[in-house]
C-alpha cells in the first residue's frame, strides 16, 4: 500500500504567515535585522521571507512538507522569543536604532 498517496496532509505547498507587533518600529527593525540573516537549513524544503511594516514584523513560510513547516515555524518562534528577551533586558533607556554603515 502506498501510504503517501493517501496522505491528504501533504498537498503542497503548505504555508504559514506570522504577524508580530512590536512596541515601536525601531524595535521591530532590530528583530527583523537579527532574524533575517540566517538561511533555512539546506535539507529543508521550507522557505522563509521576512518583511517589516511599520512596527509589525511579518514572517511568511512556504513548504513542501507539513512537518518541516512546523519545525521551521517553531525554530523561528524560539529565536523570536530570544530576541524579545534580549530587547526586554538590554535595551538602553535612550535607544534609537543607529544607521549601521555595514547594513545593506
Amino acid at each position, binding site marked *: 500500500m502506498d501510504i503517501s498517496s493517501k496522505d491528504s496532509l501533504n498537498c503542497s505547498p503548505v504555508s504559514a504567515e506570522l504577524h508580530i507587533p512590536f512596541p515601536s518600529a525601531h524595535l521591530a527593525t*532590530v*528583530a527583523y*535585522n*537579527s*532574524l533575517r*540573516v*540566517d*538561511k533555512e*537549513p539546506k535539507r529543508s524544503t521550507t522557505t522563509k521571507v521576512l518583511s517589516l511594516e511599520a512596527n509589525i514584523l511579518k514572517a511568511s513560510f512556504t513548504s513542501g512538507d507539513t512537518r518541516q513547516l512546523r519545525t521551521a515555524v517553531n*525554530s523561528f518562534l*524560539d*529565536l523570536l*522569543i*530570544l*530576541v524579545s*528577551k*534580549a*530587547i526586554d*533586558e*538590554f*535595551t*538602553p533607556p535612550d*535607544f534609537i*536604532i*543607529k544607521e*549601521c554603515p*555595514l*547594513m*545593506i
Partner: protein
Amino acid sequence: MVVSIGFEGSANKLGIGIIRDGIVLANPRRTFITPPGEGFKPVDTANHHQLNIVLLLKEALDEAKIDPQEIDVVCYTKGPGLGSPLVSVAVFARTVSQLWGKPIIGVNHCIGHIEMARLITGAQNPIVLYVSGGNTQIIAYSQKRYRIFGETVDIAVGNCLDRFARLLKLSNHPSPGHNIEQLAKNGKIYVPLPYVVKGMDMSFSGVLTYIEEFATTLQEYTVEDLCFSLQETVFAMLVETTERAMAHCGAQEVLICGGVGCNIRLQEMMSEMCKERGAKVFATDERFCIDNGAMIAHAGAEMFRVGVLTSWEDTFCTQRYRTDEVEVKWRNDI
C-alpha cells in the same frame, strides 16, 4: 583601550567573555550536560543556550563591572560547530549589537582557541596542537595564515573519547574526557590498540570501533585498563604528529589548546617528547582550554584592532569553517 565582549556556543558550552586590553574581566560559562550514555543533540543544545544566555550576559556584565556603553565591539562565534546552537548565539549577539549600537565581528572558533592560548601563555611562534571534541588539528603560523599541517581524517580525538565514555555510561559531569582521565590513572594493563598515523594526519574511528568491542566483552581487562590504554594510544598519535610538524618547521615551542588540552597525561607525554628536543610545552587551564567566551572576545578584539569588520549580511553562521580560511592580519611576524 578596547573593550570587547565575546559570545561562544558552538557546542554544549555557552560562554560569554569580556576583555579590556588583553585582560579578562569576566568569563562565565554554562555547560549543557546530558545523562550518562547520551551525547548532546543540536536542538536540545540550542534550547539550553537560549534558556541561559540572558542570565549569563547579566552575570558577565556584573562580574566585569562594565556598562554595555563601554563595550567597543560585539564578537560571536561564526563557526565551525553545530548549526542551531551557533545560530541561537548569533541571533542574540546581533540583537545586543544593534541595541547597544556597536559593530559586530564573526570569529573563527579555532582561531579563538589559538589566540587566547597565545595571550595567556606568551608562546611566541609555537606548533599548535588544537584538540577538542569537535576538532583535531596541528597548526603552524606562516605568512598571515594558520596553516593546517595535519589533522584527523575522520573524527576528533575528543569525539573518540566522548563516545567511548558514552559506551561505558560514564558521567558527563564535568565532562566525559575528565572522567576517562580519572579512571585511566588506575589502569594497570596496557591493551594494544590500533595506532593510526598517516604521515601528518591521524585517524580515530578505527581505534574507537576496536575498543568498543572490548568494552562490551571486557574479557580480562577492567574499565580502568581500557581508559588507560585508549589515552596512551591516541595521545601517542598526537605527540608523534606534533613532533613531525616541529621537525618540519624547526619549532621549539608546542602550544596545546582545546578541551582535550586540559588532560594532564597528554601534557606529560608532550613534555617528555619536547624535553628530548630541548623544546617547551605551553598549555592553559580549563578556564581557557575548554570553550569560553573570552577567547572569542580576544580574537575579535585583535581583528577589530586591525580593522577587520563583518558586514551584516556576513554575520551568518557556518558549520564548516577552516582555520586557514582566515587572513591573520593582526600578526606581523613571518
